[in-house]
């Protein structure tokens, strides 16, 4: 079994073209509330604060419910117009997760890694 890439933890609002994570093919883990889902294309839209991201959920077999919080791991694909879509390979419902605690802990985690 080939080594699988870890999905780097990012907040949606950090996914801007100048970000180190805004690269075609990069593996990411994103978290957000499901705002929209197109059954025909299996494309979902998640939002977190003022940012949103399209997620291709074709490979997943999960129940996507509008308004629930989801976490997806997959590869970021940049379309010709520089719009990003995450091709998810793993996804799960995260209802009940404390998003403020998540953001604060993520910052602590990054500081810890940077200090190694």
């Amino acid at each position, binding site marked *: 079994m080939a080594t699988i890439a870890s999905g780097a*933890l990012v907040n949606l609002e950090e996914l801007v073209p100048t970000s180190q994570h805004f690269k075609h093919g990069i593996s990411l883990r994103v978290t957000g509330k499901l705002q929209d889902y197109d059954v025909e294309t299996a494309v979902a839209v998640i939002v977190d604060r003022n940012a949103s991201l399209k997620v291709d959920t074709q490979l997943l077999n*999960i129940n996507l419910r509008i308004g629930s919080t989801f976490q997806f791991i997959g590869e970021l694909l940049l379309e010709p117009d520089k719009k990003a879509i995450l091709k998810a390979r793993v996804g799960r419902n995260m209802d009940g997760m*404390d998003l403020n605690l998540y953001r604060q802990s993520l910052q602590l985690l990054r500081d810890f890694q940077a200090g190694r």
Partner: protein
Amino acid sequence: MDALQLVNTHVKLLAFDFLSVQSIPQEPTIFSRKGRRLSRAETVGIVVSRDLKANRFMKFDIDDGTGCIPCILWLNHESSRYFSRRCPSNVRLIAQMAADFASQVQLGVIARVRGKMSSYRGNLQITVSDVVIERDPNSQILHWLDCLRLARNCYDKVLVDPST
């Protein structure tokens, strides 16, 4: 916790930390992190791959957001010579428990995995002894914070030889 002894303790390490642990020549079951000897580890993360070879083993990867830890769960207890000298009813129980773990480990679940650190073809992995599927979505966050606290307050402590 005795700061000197970490061997046989399931140390909670983030994946990037786990993957930087060094092997020790002539001691295949012991590994070294910042001069401390380790043999067991615990991780919590999302199962991102799963490769089952029925009645032999299951390989899977746990992604904790800082890296992926390869895990191997042996499923060959009833055919392995290693277990042939042990009580058959105990071996059956161990085999049944391993089979239950294998059925619970599915893509996308949050799993807490404990086991022995081992090396296969030069790559570190966990040889699984316990799996718990976490229902609380905050469990990953709490694991990160546990790992940070333990690294700073325990695992990173410099050892001072009491005889010097």
